[in-house]
């Protein structure tokens, strides 16, 4: 995944209401998005 595309992916998570209650997120290529703390809506 190109860097800019990856950046858009991170931004989409930060902007997504589904993740509004999340506080800390982990992003990895093999596991995808992990909510490290906080709850998904």
């Amino acid at each position: 995944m190109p860097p800019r595309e990856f950046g858009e992916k991170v931004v989409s998570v930060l902007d997504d209401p589904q993740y509004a209650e999340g506080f800390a997120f982990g992003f990895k290529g093999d596991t995808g998005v992990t909510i490290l703390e906080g709850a998904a809506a």
Partner: protein
Amino acid sequence: MSLKDKSVVVTGGSRGLGLGLVEALVAHGARVTVVARDADALASVRARLGVATISADVTDETAAHRILGEFRPDILVLNAGAKPRMGRLDQLSWADFTATVGDRRQGRALLAAGGAQPAAQARKPRPGGIERRGPERIAALGRLCRRQAHALDHGRLRQSASRSRRTSGSASRRSCRCRWSAIPASATPAPTRTRAPWASSPKSS
């Protein structure tokens, strides 16, 4: 959560994935501050994207405190990382082995610093009754494992709790559903060797 006019600090944002993320954040209207070691690369990013830049090593705790205190980010992106040196084991130094460990400690330093800063704005109290301090959100790119992130955050919670004269240990545990220790590394006592009760007593000579 709209990113428009949100203050975002991105570590390691001068190249690679970090730079791609900075470009995306700028395109969505965020106020981005890029932290990296390479001053030349930072100057290039600043000229091209109009972001604020800080040339610093994020493993330096003093720099981490200064950065978070000065910019009060709404979002903190922990992207900076060190590439471990590869090679035969007998040809690697201790510094080679510990480079990536030190890299992970950067996040600990930054998050601990966030806990030490006064709240930028009123936030919703946590389940344990502890008001969050520091950035609203943290995005860790790859380098921090789940266990570390928990430990880091609990260290910060303990710090906030003790500052507000709450019983820090119980408060941290109340807000935590994980099974890992809630003790920050700085408060972890040195390991002590104790004899297991089932072990035989040493022979006296």
